[in-house]
């Protein structure tokens, strides 16, 4: 009973904080950002039903997101032109969910016959196919221009028109809470548990009576359904949709968010969606090379922290449980390790920015602003400074990382001793 209460209050607290956010950050930039985050949280958690829960790597999940978006916009236009009967705007994500479930069931039936690399390739193939269709079937997709709509249609119950962005924010927030809660509950059902079992060991799962294909297919269909709900909200949010919403880039973005946040944990994709959406919106203004940094972050996570950010946090759970002193002992070596790597990264960023600057056509006098400081990309001194920083970071890392690892190993060995002692 206490557990239910605890988790339920947690949801309420999160809901209240999220509802209060627009009051704290009044700018329209913040509101736009929050709306985008809400939509992408749903999409990423839905995607993680496949990647994290079911162990299926898809390169084409934007199909269900995007197609639901297209369908929603057409229906909004239909209502606006009075060729379609009125449908309450609040319930639009249901339309998206049905569209997602429909296409997810069909494509999933074909693609979940195979697992692993073959599954990934098939998903990529379907994604390319749907992207091509957006350019071929112009009547429905309108090619590269995409289609627009006006979300203010039909009657206005309680004076809510969904015209102002703030009303859309609360609509997204409501659906975000509902769908994420549903997806969380699904992980606690027999189907959810068998998803993990199939991910861990499909052969064994078959020998406890479950059809591996059926579990994968169901995961695929449900994941597409929630992705479709997100797609509907995306369409309502922007009142526009284009071919990029169904494409490989969008599919890749959701993979990045889920993986960097941490596919192995339910909260991982949420962390990823919030973090990357924030960086995407802020860093994109600061530097043109943002995508390069994103790629760098992704590569580093794949190589050094395959559990993502959530994985790094969860890793310390057993230590915190056994002895919190061990945990505080880790802070100092961690900070010095992080510090040394940050020095190296600053040097790296400096070099990239200057390289990028020099590749521009209009170089001017060569002044480039990096970290609020003016450097001369044509002068040798700037290059020496940044290369020096990289080397310094490298040398320091050589010292601080083994130290951090040593403390970590010690902490883990204490924890292991404690467990076996019990």
């Amino acid at each position, binding site marked *: 009973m206490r557990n239910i209460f605890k988790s339920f209050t947690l949801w309420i607290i999160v809901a209240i904080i999220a509802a209060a956010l627009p009051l704290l950050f009044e700018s329209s930039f913040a509101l736009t950002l929050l709306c985008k985050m809400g939509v992408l949280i749903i999409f990423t958690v839905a995607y993680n039903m496949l990647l994290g829960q079911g162990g299926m790597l898809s390169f084409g999940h934007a199909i269900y997101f995007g197609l639901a978006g297209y369908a929603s916009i057409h229906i909004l236009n239909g209502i606006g032109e009075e060729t379609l009967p009125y449908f309450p705007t609040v319930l639009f994500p249901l339309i998206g969910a049905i569209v997602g479930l429909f296409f997810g069931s069909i494509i999933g039936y074909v693609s979940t016959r195979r697992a692993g690399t073959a599954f990934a390739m098939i998903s990529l193939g379907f994604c390319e196919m749907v992207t091509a269709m957006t350019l071929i079937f112009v009547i429905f997709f309108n090619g590269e221009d995409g289609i627009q709509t006006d979300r203010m249609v039909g009657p206005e119950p309680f004076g809510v028109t969904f015209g102002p962005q703030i009303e859309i924010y609360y609509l997204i927030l409501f659906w975000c809470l509902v769908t994420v809660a549903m997806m969380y*509950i*699904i992980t*606690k*059902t*027999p*189907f*959810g*548990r*068998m998803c*993990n*079992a199939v*991910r*861990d*060991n499909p*052969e*064994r*799962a*078959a*020998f*406890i*009576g*479950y*059809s*591996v294909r*059926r*579990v994968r297919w*169901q995961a695929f269909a*449900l994941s597409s359904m929630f992705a479709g709900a997100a797609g509907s909200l995306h369409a309502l949010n922007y009142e526009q949709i284009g071919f990029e919403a169904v494409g490989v880039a969008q599919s890749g973005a959701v993979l990045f968010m889920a993986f960097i946040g941490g596919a*192995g944990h339910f909260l991982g994709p949420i962390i990823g969606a919030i973090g990357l959406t924030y960086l995407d919106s802020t860093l994109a203004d600061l530097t043109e090379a943002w995508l390069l940094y994103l790629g760098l972050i992704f590569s580093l996570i794949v190589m050094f922290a395959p559990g993502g950010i959530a994985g790094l946090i969860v890793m310390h759970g057993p230590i915190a449980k056994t002895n919190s002193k061990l945990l505080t002992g880790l802070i100092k070596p961690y900070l010095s390790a992080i510090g040394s790597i940050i020095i190296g990264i600053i040097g790296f960023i400096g070099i990239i920015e200057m390289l990028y600057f020099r590749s521009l056509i209009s170089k001017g006098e060569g002044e480039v602003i990096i970290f609020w400081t003016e450097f001369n990309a044509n002068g040798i001194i700037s290059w020496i400074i940044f290369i020096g920083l990289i080397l310094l970071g490298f040398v320091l890392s050589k010292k601080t990382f083994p130290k951090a690892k040593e403390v970590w190993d010690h902490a883990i060995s204490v924890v292991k001793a404690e*467990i076996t002692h*019990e």
Partner: protein
Amino acid sequence: MSNGLKLTNVCKSFGEAKIIQNLNLDVKKNERHAIIGPNGAGKSTLFHLISGHYKLTSGSITLNGEKINNLEPHQINRKGLARSFQVTNIFPKMSVYENIRCGILWSMDFKYSIIKLVNKDIALNKKTKSILEEINLEHCADIPAGLLSYADQRALEIGITIAGGADTLMLDEPTAGMSNTETERAVNLIKQVSENRTLVVVEHDMGVVFDLADRISVLVYGQIIATDTPLNIRNNKAVQEAYLGTEDH
């Protein structure tokens, strides 16, 4: 019906290679039946054929009188046949408790439900606990299964195998790689869980085989050359020549 598991004229070829040829095997209901044979005799292939992992080239297999040789592994499992694997086959990232609980789900008719909550089902969790007690792993219920010792992982695997309530168990080398004390513990566990069940076991350790089995079948080059009680097998000339040899026993 005294036949638990019956194989009739079973053949399996991989391309040109005939691994199993005209194999006949009768396993009586509720007996403990061991299959022995030298390396490469086809013991693991035979297991894969029975459990539906491989498809037969020809012949038929019946379980409790029902034909099973064209079914998928999960369908054969639902007919009451459960197996373990030569390589430890558990769900390593899930807790020991979850491993067992997943093994029970289908037999308690949970199917692919996305409405019921596994934590809230009293009967399911009660059964999970009772199986954990049976295999002596209650103390590490919350630990990820991948972190268990090798012997405990094998015990857990037997736990998963019996969890679904199957009446026919097939264990593939359940004591391979274990120390003497671990083997003893494993044999006692197997004896205990195979009570009132049909057991088919492949094993290399002759001590274990003679201790455990009611009857033994000897598989050599894809054919059963003898099926008899342990005592008669020990004294069987053909078996001694083909398999036991003089240097081992």
